[in-house]
């Protein structure tokens, strides 16, 4: 409880400070400090949740349970390395591309922290309206970040992102309204019907017709935000155009946040109409996303677009796993949501160093990384292992747990389709990776960033690999609590 408000406030305050500081050598430090503080507070929150269980705060506006704690950890634990890397990367880019000439100083940091704050609020919000507002805020902040470099591509990507996500968001608002209405008669005091906890507890009495309608709109709306096919179209453009640290954050933290928002609706619907119906829809969209990503992963020239499609595939896998509805699958899905974030963030951060070093975003322009730069090459290999899900990366275990739960469930067909998709994706990704890692390196490739920029990536890699061979009890308990929230 005591940890919650500071956690939500530290980021916005830091952002304001950055804005105030402008171009000062303190600005990056403030960014790092607030990210670190957020991570520390999130850890404290997890400890609180594990010991004390779920609790509601701020007069029912905020609510913390396993899912919240887990997503908060994902958000903050990814934000810190990204910010760390960015503090080395963005200045380099600025002086190479003169971006800051067109851009008020300190605003990158401010926007990043604003995004972080919005995501945390959206995660911890109990009031669905508040959650909606926070996610909309996150969308706006990230849209500005996507357009950070004002080159045509960036503007185009930002425009598509903004338009598509705004539409999605407004559909989500309609969903919120419908849910609110479906419970309108139940609760006396105004606004109680917007509180997720109330709705969950009273799910049985809700009007299923409206709940279903609400879930459909939420699926389309927040689904678009989470990048589920076929609402995913904005995603490759945005991820490939956004500054590297931002892309890393969006493909992991923002994805987790939007999914958790969707999961709130899912939980209520499952409790109201019985799990079969929403599970079916989840499985459908999950499998669709995985299959849809396959061709773009097979035939792809750009590294960051490849990662974008891979994150569509992973989001699909998580959704599908939850759609399976068996405890094992849900556990696997949430575990995958957690562990894939580290793999993806690592892969995106590498895009910065390697892409800038090779002056290209095309994969065939940086072969032989293992030889060109053993450190980056090794990290790239680890990232690849994590993305395709090979041991000892944690994604291996999570993927198989998710599918293992699936084979047993009523959606065995979807599980088999997903397995096939995974295999083909493996073919595609291993092909691209074999070309990036091996072969004769290009002349004059050099890691453009100081060696310190490897540290955050090593940290991500370490977590990824450790979670593949050992799952500490607290993490396991956390994931189990989160699974409890999704499907009690």
């Amino acid at each position, binding site marked *: 409880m005591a940890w919650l408000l500071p956690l939500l406030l530290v980021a916005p305050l830091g952002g304001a400070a950055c804005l105030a500081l402008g171009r000062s050598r303190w600005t990056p430090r403030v960014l790092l400090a607030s990210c670190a503080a957020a991570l520390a507070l999130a850890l404290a929150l997890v400890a609180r949740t594990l010991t004390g269980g779920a609790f509601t705060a701020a007069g029912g506006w905020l609510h913390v349970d396993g899912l919240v704690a887990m997503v908060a950890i994902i958000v903050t634990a990814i934000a810190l390395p990204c910010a760390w890397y960015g503090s080395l990367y963005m200045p380099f880019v600025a002086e190479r591309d003169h971006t800051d000439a067109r851009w008020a100083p300190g605003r990158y940091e401010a926007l990043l922290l604003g995004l972080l704050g919005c995501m945390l609020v959206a995660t911890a919000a109990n*009031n669905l*309206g508040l959650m909606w*507002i926070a996610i909309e805020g996150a969308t*706006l902040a990230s849209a500005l970040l996507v357009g950070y470099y004002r080159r045509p591509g960036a503007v185009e990507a930002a425009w598509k992102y*903004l338009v598509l996500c705004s539409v999605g968001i407004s559909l989500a608002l309609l969903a919120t309204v419908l849910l609110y209405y479906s419970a309108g008669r139940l609760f006396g005091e105004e606004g109680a019907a917007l509180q997720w906890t109330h709705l969950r507890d009273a799910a049985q009495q809700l009007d299923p017709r409206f709940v279903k309608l609400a879930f459909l709109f939420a699926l389309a709306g927040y689904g678009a935000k989470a990048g589920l096919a076929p609402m995913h179209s904005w995603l490759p453009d945005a991820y490939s*155009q956004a500054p590297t640290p931002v892309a890393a954050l969006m493909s992991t933290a923002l994805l987790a946040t939007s999914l958790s928002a969707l999961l709130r609706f899912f939980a209520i619907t499952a409790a109201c109409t019985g799990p079969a119906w929403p599970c079916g829809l989840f499985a459908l969209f999950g499998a669709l996303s995985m299959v849809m990503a396959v061709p773009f992963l097979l035939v792809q020239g750009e590294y960051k677009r490849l990662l974008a499609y891979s994150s569509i595939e992973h989001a699909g896998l998580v959704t599908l796993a939850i759609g399976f509805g068996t405890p094992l699958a849900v556990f696997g899905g949430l575990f995958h949501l957690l562990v894939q974030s580290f793999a993806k963030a690592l892969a995106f951060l590498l895009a910065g160093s390697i892409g800038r070093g090779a002056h290209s975003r095309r994969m065939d322009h940086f072969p032989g990384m293992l030889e060109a730069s053993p450190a980056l090459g090794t990290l790239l290999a680890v990232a690849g292992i994590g993305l395709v899900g090979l041991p000892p990366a944690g994604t291996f275990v999570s993927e198989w747990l998710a599918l293992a739960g699936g084979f047993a469930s009523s959606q065995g067909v979807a599980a088999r389709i997903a397995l096939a998709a995974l295999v083909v994706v493996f073919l595609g990704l291993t092909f691209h990776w074999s070309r990036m890692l091996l072969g004769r390196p290009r002349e004059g490739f050099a890691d453009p960033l100081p060696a310190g920029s490897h540290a955050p990536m090593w940290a991500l890699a370490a977590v990824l690999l450790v979670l593949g061979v050992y799952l500490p009890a607290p993490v396991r308990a956390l994931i189990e609590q989160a699974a409890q929230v999704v499907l009690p």
Partner: protein
Amino acid sequence: MNLLFPDWLPRSNTVNLLAGAFLLSALYAAAQRRLLAAITAYQWNSVALGLIAAVVAVVTGARHIALAALLVFAIKAVVIPAVLRRQAMRGGGDTVAEPFMGVPAGMLACGGLVVLAFSQTRALFGAGSSILASCLPVSVATTLVGLFIMVSRRRALMQVVGLVIVENAIFLAAVSLTYGMPLVVEMGVLLDLLVGVALLGLFVGRIEETLGDTDTTRLTSLKG
């Protein structure tokens, strides 16, 4: 609490009337070739929305709805159209929206969407509760129409118009179904909407300065 079942209200007919006007203005916007005309249509749409809000406020006597109505008038019927108009002027005056398909075909499509929306949402209500009976279908229909506008127009600004129409529709649902959400929420929603439109305007500007005009069909450099 019986306020929630205002069948006996004579005013419900006015609400129905306004809801019809709301939908019509949306369709009118969808039928426009000219940008400024579409913006005007949106303005009427917002006015209808504000009136509905006002009526509901009177009916229920809920203060925050009255406030919401005022806000709607202020923001949706005045500020946003102004912003959009300024953009449109900067974008070369009374430009043409250049629809992909001709107006009649577009109208047919919109009609189909409206029918779909009504058929899917009517079923949700019993014979009674007339306000709801008209408003939710209208709002869903308008949502689809707004989306259709976004799909079928080349101009960036037209897509903004479609988007704000969608927002209106949802706001209609909020007001009519639930007699308004908690005030704070509505504030936030409106604020976000405002910022969003401002941002969209900003990016329309950027598109112009990078592409030289606002034909969004040219924004296809990122593919595959």
